[in-house]
């Protein structure tokens, strides 16, 4: 009985370490994670958000979004965002009314602050949504940017 349990644990341990090795090897061979085509080609904001892994998020005022209230040129809209939620490991930017709402997804490591500054295209007036992952939970915040000339051609 005891013997059986022992050999069972042994084999389970062997399988366990095998999968650990496999999971370590995987990201090493592909330097960056594969481009999330599904999320980037999703047309509905809700689909883009869930396909990017930011679904079921709690609204949080600790995510600061800096963007103009009115953008004269939708082709270039400066957006920067800071997450003051401790343990933020990644951040995604969505422009909800764009033909492809997911703009970018960022992963922070080795001391990089939960801050991103970039410039996005906006087809028309829309909510700009920033979602983050922190401690296994998702948080989100949004802010409206009015666009007078669209910049997406779509």
């Amino acid at each position: 009985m005891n013997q059986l349990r022992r050999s069972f644990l042994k084999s389970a341990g062997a399988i366990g370490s095998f999968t650990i090795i496999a999971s370590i090897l995987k990201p090493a061979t592909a330097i960056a994670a594969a481009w999330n085509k599904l999320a980037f080609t999703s047309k509905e904001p809700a689909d883009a958000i869930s396909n990017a892994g930011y679904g079921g998020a709690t609204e949080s005022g600790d995510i600061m979004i800096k963007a103009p209230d009115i953008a004269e040129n939708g082709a270039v809209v400066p957006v920067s965002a800071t997450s003051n939620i401790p343990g933020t490991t990644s951040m995604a930017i969505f422009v909800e009314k764009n033909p492809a709402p997911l703009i970018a997804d960022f992963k922070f490591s080795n001391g990089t602050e939960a801050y991103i500054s970039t410039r996005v295209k906006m087809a028309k007036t829309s909510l700009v949504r920033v979602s983050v992952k922190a401690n296994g939970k998702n948080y989100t915040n949004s802010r409206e940017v009015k666009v007078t000339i669209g910049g997406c051609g779509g």
Partner: protein
Amino acid sequence: MAEAMKMRATMEGNVADVKVLIQHPMDTGTMKDSKTDKLIPAFFINQVVATLNGKTVLEAQWGVGIAKNPFLGFRVNGAKSGDKVAVNAVDNLGNKYDGEVVVA
């Protein structure tokens, strides 16, 4: 294509403020060429990795919604002047864009 990327990194306290500018059309694939009336195929940077002294500090995936000639700003805590920041970007056709700067 080294000249396609401009970078600057300056210390603010113990945080390195990094700014990156890459020359790229970032074509969405939905716009028509005004002369030929044909769709301009999608051509955009979709992956960006930044390292500090060889250690990954930021990994990004981009879609077509990043503006033409992309700008990226980020901040790395615990960096010091003299550290090396490198950025490697790849577009959807596999073209590579690399840049490196010493933190001032």
